[in-house]
């Protein structure tokens, strides 16, 4: 299998403070990786660095995505190349309807790929299909992006956008946070329906409960800016039973 994502010795800082202290991680096409770890271990930093958030500075290391140097690509181009982040805290964009927003996103990608813009009829058809996939209310689709949405609606909207953009590698950053069990199930089912053989996911989470629905192939534990443990899905249960303290103790010098 081909390496879709290859992270080598990645170091990153925010406001001069080092958060990632040498990450190595390889994701092959078709794999689902879970990244777990206690609060403040660098999970969200990792996802933000991968999509090129300007607040973070990469100080060392390399990231290859589809064989390309990911760190040289603008955030837009990373998106066009099939990288998607489901945000932990999706922002509100008042006055911009989800429809207009998605249309701009899809047509920007098509332009990047040298394709004609999608016509209105086709676009609305795709919207309908994808909306059904994640049970997104049609009323919601006409509202401004995330404005006045509940926590669950925001996350569902993220997965809807994921469905629209059909990414190759999706990063789900704490998608379970703030969701009740029903909302969690709907969101997770949406993600599973979107899974294809050649697409991969990085599921970032503090708890095991999301991983009851989205089954990972490989589980990593991130602690203090490094991946300190990598194992199969059985690690999820172990963490659930023992908590993170033993990880912390193992890594104490």
């Amino acid at each position: 299998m081909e390496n879709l994502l290859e992270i080598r010795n990645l170091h990153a800082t925010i406001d001069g403070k080092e958060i990632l202290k040498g990450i190595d991680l390889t994701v092959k096409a078709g794999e689902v990786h879970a990244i777990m770890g206690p609060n403040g271990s660098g999970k969200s930093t990792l996802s933000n660095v991968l999509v090129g958030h300007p607040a973070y500075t990469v100080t060392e290391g390399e990231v290859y995505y589809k064989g390309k140097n990911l760190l040289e690509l603008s955030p837009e181009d990373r998106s066009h190349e099939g990288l998607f982040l489901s945000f932990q805290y999706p922002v509100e964009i008042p006055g911009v309807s989800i429809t207009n927003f998605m249309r701009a996103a899809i047509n920007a990608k098509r332009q990047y790929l040298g394709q004609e813009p999608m016509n209105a009829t086709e676009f609305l058809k795709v919207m309908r299909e994808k909306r059904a996939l994640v049970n997104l209310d049609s009323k919601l689709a006409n509202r401004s992006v995330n404005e006045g949405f509940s926590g669950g609606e925001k996350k569902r909207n993220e997965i809807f956008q994921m469905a629209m953009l059909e990414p190759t590698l999706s990063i789900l950053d704490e998608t379970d946070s703030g969701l009740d069990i029903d909302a969690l199930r709907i969101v997770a089912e949406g993600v599973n329906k979107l899974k294809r053989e050649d697409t991969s996911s990085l599921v970032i989470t503090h708890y095991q409960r999301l991983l009851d629905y989205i089954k990972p192939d490989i589980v990593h534990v991130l602690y203090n800016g490094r991946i300190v443990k990598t194992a199969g899905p059985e690690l999820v249960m172990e963490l659930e039973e023992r908590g993170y303290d033993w990880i912390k103790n193992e890594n104490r010098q």
Partner: protein
Amino acid sequence: MKKKDNILKKIANKAYEFGFVSKIKTEVIEKGLNEDVIRLISGKKNEPEWLLEFRLEAYRHWLTMEMPRWAHLDIPPIDYQAISYYADPLKKNKEKNKEIDPELMKTFEKLGIPLEERLALSGTAVDAVMDSVSVKTTFKEELKEKGIIFCSMSEAVQEYPDLVRRYLGTVVNYRDNFYAALNTAVFSDGSFVYIPKGVRCPMELSTYFRINAANTGQFERTLIVADDDSYVSYLEGCTAPMRDENQLHAAIVEIVVNNNAEVKYSTVQNWYPGDSEGKGGVYNFVTKRGDCRGTNSKLSWTQVETGSAITWKYPSCILRGDNSQGEFYSVALTNNFQQADTGTKMIHLGKNTRSTIISKGISAGRSQNSYRGLVRVSKNAEGARNYSQCDSLLLGDKCGAHTFPYMDIHNNSAVIEHEATTSKISEDQLFYCNQRGIGTEEAIGLIVNGYAKEVLNKLPMEFAIEAQKLLSVSLEGAVG
């Protein structure tokens, strides 16, 4: 990084796409202003004696006045003797034959305003004004069949002197302000509209103003009269070439709305705003006012202001008739070194009069953007209502947004509501868009258009699309 800066610079300079100059033989009179110049302009237009007297009176009054200083604007000194007050692109040609210079037709075509009726936008009649003269008015004959008069002001003075005399200067008196006096003294062309009793104007009427000649001022004068039970929607667009010198545009628009009549006046103002260093650009000092004289009359102003180096403009409604209604919807965008001080006045005189003000300011670059609005309710205006909403959106931290709402309420039954917000486009919003593949400039355009949606929705369809594009283009290079 340097490469990126260069690209942004290029875009910023490219952004004004109407900055070309047309090579048209234009008769421009000597620079300077005195009574002889006014006589010359009046003579060229073959005006009746009363109009000349009217101009001279205004001029003499103007000499006693000073430029208003109360606005939040930094206006460099203007040498009124260094301006030419009349420029006629038709003159040279007229002597030979009656045809319009093809270059002139081409200019308007380039601006997206075809003057041949077969090419015209559907349902829109156009009066095209370049510098001091109306070039052509389309669909005049069709409108005449319904009794609607739509022509240039100069023509109206010749053809309908009684109507003009009856209404001209009755809404905006030349004593009103410095620029109103100046305009009354030297006004050149503009449009005249008369909608007779009971007639609903079947098409949009629109005037397109173009400044072309250098070192000239444009002093447009527009008068719209909507008689009882009539309706008209009127649109105004403006552009000018890119020049290093500032150019003065001092207009007066007067609107009379009689019983049960309704007038919608929409403006997309895109005068040259100056370059990214603040050099050049049009000074847009304009007095626009409507008098809702009739009961149940209604006047609605919608403006999208993206142009001009300096804007000083307060389209207002005098709600004289009982149950009359005034509306003001505005988007004012300033970028680079632009300054705008704009808003409205709602003067409630009649009973049960209502007014709505929605103002959306957008500031970027080093620009200064002020909303200034007055709501006055007179002693006899029982049951007046006003709702005002003034929002400001800031892009970057070097620009300024200011709100100056004045309320002058003399009747206890009045219900006045005022809301104001200030917001910024956040880095997080832009990054969210970037992550979805939308570039920063497009993202700003999207967010700004979303913010201004309430006002843009009030514009006629074709204008709304133009205005949307304009808002995005005007902000290109606004963030680096």
